[in-house]
């Protein structure tokens, strides 16, 4: 039995091409069933996310499997799939799935969302009865590989975007964020994203202050927070735990001299300041005050890049682990082939894609 993977991803195709190939979730069982109708194809799983569209197929002969998917796509697109469409034979297809599910092939290295997406694609195929012995075994093994890689390496460690770094730091300061009050100064897009991420972690309240009250009200509504007039924020800051600055003011909105007496009145309550504005809203000297933790956009980016550096360093170890798992799976697959009179060495030698 051959296990094949055909598809395109963010590595090989731009978004306008990927969207042409995209297969809606509701469509996937029908597509997989259509592939099974082709001669020699016995199992199929369709994985379609915003970054990739991939077909995993188990076929008696590789050419039969490749032809089945190509013919389906040619009919669907009214043209051949083109150069961006890769075709991986055994065992490259196995290795590819293990890399995908571990987040090594993702746009953001080590991201974990893909595991859920692959699980969902497999569950859909399984419910549609388009999987059997080989793809069942392959996908179950892939989920184990993902767990192994994530547990035993640092590939998922640390946040790698400005927003997620800001949230991670908040959690390292306050633990659970359920008791935290957040204040946003300036209704910019970046502050909205960061506040949205904090809101998702269940912060207690969000205040939005903006020079245009209407914009503050609009953002507050989105975040299920409360809009306040810009002149009011100095009064409200006494009760704030997380302050996000993103105004377009040309000068510091909050200085160390202004904040010092406030912090003296609440020595046991830290203040985490996230300054996303350029020019900066918060005077850097506030970080010298006891209980104040100030991070500007560069500091957040530096931590994100540091985490990404760690992930890149882990890549070699992850690849070795995946190679080992792929070889083990290849041995199992070859066991089945040996019964059919095919040697494993033929599988390996014929499989580099």
């Amino acid at each position, binding site marked *: 039995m051959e296990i094949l993977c055909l598809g395109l991803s963010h590595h090989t195709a731009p978004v306008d091409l990927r969207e042409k190939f995209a297969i809606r979730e509701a469509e996937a069982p029908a597509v997989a069933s259509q592939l099974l109708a082709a001669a020699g194809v016995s199992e199929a799983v369709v994985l379609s996310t915003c970054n990739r569209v991939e077909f995993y197929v188990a076929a008696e002969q590789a050419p039969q499997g490749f032809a089945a998917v190509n013919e389906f796509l040619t009919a669907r697109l009214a043209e051949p799939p083109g150069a961006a469409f890769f075709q991986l034979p055994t065992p490259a297809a196995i290795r590819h799935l293990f890399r995908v599910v571990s987040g090594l092939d993702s746009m953001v290295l080590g991201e974990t969302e893909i595991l859920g997406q692959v699980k969902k694609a497999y569950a859909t195929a399984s419910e549609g009865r388009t999987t059997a012995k080989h793809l069942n075994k392959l996908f179950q093994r892939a989920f184990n590989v993902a767990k192994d890689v994530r547990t035993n390496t640092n590939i998922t460690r640390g946040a790698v975007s400005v927003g997620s770094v800001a949230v991670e730091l908040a959690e390292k300061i*306050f633990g659970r964020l359920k008791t935290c009050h957040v204040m946003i100064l300036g209704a910019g897009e970046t502050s909205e994203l960061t506040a949205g991420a904090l809101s998702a972690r269940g912060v207690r309240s969000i205040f939005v202050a903006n020079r245009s009250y209407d914009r503050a009200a609009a953002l507050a509504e989105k975040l299920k927070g409360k809009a306040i007039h810009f002149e009011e924020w100095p009064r409200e800051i006494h009760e704030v735990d997380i302050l996000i600055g993103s105004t377009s003011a040309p000068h510091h909105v909050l200085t160390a001299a202004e904040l010092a007496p406030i912090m003296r009145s609440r020595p046991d309550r830290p203040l985490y300041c996230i300054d996303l504005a350029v020019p900066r809203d918060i005077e850097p000297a506030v970080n010298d005050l006891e209980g104040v933790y100030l991070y500007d956009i560069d500091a957040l980016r530096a931590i994100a890049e540091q985490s990404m550096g760690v992930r890149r360093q882990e890549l070699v170890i992850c690849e070795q682990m995946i190679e080992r798992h792929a070889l083990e799976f290849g041995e199992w697959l070859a066991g089945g082939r040996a019964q059919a009179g095919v040697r494993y060495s033929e599988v390996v030698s014929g499989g580099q894609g």
Partner: protein
Amino acid sequence: MDRLLLVISTFCFLFGFGYTMHALGARVYKASRLNFFAVLTGFLCQTGFLYVRGQMVGRCPLTSLFEVLIFLSWSMVLFYLLIGPAYRLSLLGAFTSPLAFLFQVVALLLVKDTPMKAKTPPNGWLELHAAISVVAYGAFALACVAGAMYLAQERQLKSHNIHSIFYHLPPIHDLSVANNRLIIVGFSLLTVGLGAGFALGGIFTHSVLTAWSVGVWLLYGVILTAEWRHRISPRRVAWLSVAAFSVLLVTLGGLNFIALKGAL
């Protein structure tokens, strides 16, 4: 037999610490049960030692600095086993191990140990007073550990210089809560211990030891009062818990002098 148990226990703490440091250095640390079981085994051996020693001397094994150090180490590990898993403070064990190791190495290598059978029958109240007081010091020792962890984590947050250990240390809020609760537990136990001594009246005969114990009680009382009145930041509480326990340890030499004179 008793010293063998102590040596095994000491190696358990060394192993727990070494394993964690190696795992952190190799950046493959994860909350492992191995370190917890190393500390647990060390604790069981300590308990065995204290039991055997208690049988040997015919009273609570707090008759010398050697025994006080082991009892202190045992108390600290006891608190770790009680609160470490509950607060998800997995690395607390890694920070507790070296201190327990240090106490025991100092006791084994530097402190004279000549266990002697008591000539007089044990005084239950006096033993209760001493035992509860040393258990209270164990809570202060672990508060010191939590304080050191707080300072390590806070420094990284302040300086933006994030190291690998940052991801394994708990949030500073959790460390502050643990630190605070341990000080409260230690202070409460010390109050009970001192109360037992005063109720008996026996500790008045040992004025230096009494003054020292009251001094420690006052020191932690001041820290707690300042905290309760919101006059002090968690960072300062962390510093004070480290400093106060360091003072306590340094003055333990004086306690030894008193113990040698039979004051305990």
